[in-house]
């Protein structure tokens, strides 16, 4: 998974069965997927885009779709057939398999489906549990965990599958601040291509190398965080990271734009050009 995934959307229109307004309108984008952040107001189509890429739309949720989607040059359906996709839903409680006695079983569920050997499953579950600090919950019942812990469990059970593309829909909404910091630190190090929809704009600015801005089902812009925030500097609909707002207020820039990450702010304040 070292090389980066290429995605190509061409004129994708989509609406859910029974709804006539389009959930995605004329989506056209050719881009690389390494660490992509999806931002925009609610009802913008962020979840729809994640469900689309996960192959959930059409096969599972009835929708009408037109236009083409290709991953690494292959049509989405063929690509999905040969690859493992990972999708973490917004509501963690309903993400659990509904048939696991312990946290260990829950994480191992997908691995048993891949037909792996017992030893390999044990190794992977321990590794993933350690990454999301769930080691000392492994033999507890999933229902005994708190909202934030269940969210970490849901993420762990998807990462254990070693997905070729990880799709996260607001995965930290119920986590406490430390849990969220721990998760985004892990995400920064992970080498799996990720698309994450989240309202934590500061963490997205630190972790993502690309941001896609969606509004009412239309792609407003896709690009590097710095370019996005400069373009939408005074758009009230799009949140900006604290570093950017502070840089703007203190009037110091970092190579031509207001700082986006913490260390860019440090450099800008230290010797950046004060306009």
């Amino acid at each position, binding site marked *: 998974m070292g090389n980066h995934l290429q995605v190509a959307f061409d004129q994708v229109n989509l609406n859910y069965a029974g709804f006539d307004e389009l959930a995605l309108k004329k989506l056209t984008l050719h881009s690389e997927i390494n660490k992509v952040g999806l931002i925009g107001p609610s009802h913008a189509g962020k979840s729809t885009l994640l*469900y689309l890429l*996960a*192959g*959930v739309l059409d096969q*599972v*949720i009835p929708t009408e779709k037109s236009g083409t989607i290709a991953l690494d040059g292959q049509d989405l359906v063929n690509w999905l057939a040969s690859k493992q*996709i*990972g*999708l973490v*839903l917004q*509501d963690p*409680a*309903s*993400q*659990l*398999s*509904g*048939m*696991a*006695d312990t946290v260990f*079983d829950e994480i*191992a*569920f*997908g691995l*048993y*489906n*891949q*037909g*792996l050997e*017992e030893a390999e499953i044990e190794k992977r579950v321990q590794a993933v549990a350690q990454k999301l600090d769930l080691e000392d919950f492994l033999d507890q*019942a999933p*229902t005994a965990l708190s909202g934030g812990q269940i969210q970490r469990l849901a993420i762990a*059970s*998807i990462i254990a*599958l070693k997905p070729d593309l990880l799709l996260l829909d607001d995965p930290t909404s119920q986590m406490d601040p430390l849990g969220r910091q721990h998760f985004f630190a892990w995400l920064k190090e992970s080498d799996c291509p990720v698309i994450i929809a989240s309202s934590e704009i500061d963490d997205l600015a630190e972790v993502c190398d690309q941001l896609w801005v969606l509004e009412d089902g239309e792609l407003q812009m896709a690009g590097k965080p710095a370019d996005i925030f400069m373009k939408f500097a005074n758009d009230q609909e799009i949140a900006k990271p604290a570093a950017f707002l502070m840089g703007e207020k203190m009037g110091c820039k970092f190579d031509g734009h207001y700082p986006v990450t913490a260390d860019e702010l440090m450099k800008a304040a230290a010797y950046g050009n004060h306009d």
Partner: protein
Amino acid sequence: MDAAKSASSNANWTASVDPVTKLLLILFFTLAAFCAQNLVEAGIVLVFTLALVFALPTKKSLWAMTAFSLFIIVTMVVIQGLFWPSNQTVAFHLGTIDFYQEGLKHALLLGSRILVIIFSTSFFIETTTLSENSRYLEKSGLSFKQVYVLMSVCYILPQMHRNLQKIRFAQKARGIQPAKSLWSKAKTLMPVLVPLIVKSFQEAMNRSISLQLRGFDSPVRRVPKSDRTYWQDRACHRLLAALSLVLVGVKIWEIICK
């Protein structure tokens, strides 16, 4: 099926009997109770099931179930004793009311059948756990889908009861308070049932999506090994199935030549 954690206390022989055999035992004893024509035969079957009950490590669910059905059996004895159509010979008088022998015997026969069902079922309930059952069912050939449809309700029930509590709090905060009168209680039905049912089906939809993405129906699925070993489970199944068929034959024969 008591709580999800495996009941380690049943170290005695009941643990080495597999769940399907225990289910077939329920079937076998129920049929035997129905073939019993008189109180003596019914008594024998009852004694067998009592033996099963005495082997139980814990008896907590047994008393609740027996208590409820004893109350019903008593009302049956009274009603049958008085009004059973083929009552002829009076057994005894209670003031001006007289109880008939045939009605009392009929009621006791029915009562013994109920107790047989309760005892044999509680033998299954007390000595099996949820995970043991689901793993054994899948190991003995059911597909994950079939086991899931049968068993997953027991796993999601705690979550649904929690949802119910949260919704009742939320509606109480909005002033929906069931007072004594029937009408005020009925008024709380929709405000609680709508959120509860929509949430339950919403969770079912999300679960269905996440299960598919985690490959629940992949052909290469390997069944998790269960550390339980059972004593001659295949043999028990065949034996009990055969015996049950014999009993069904006996019952049909009885009905034909009655």
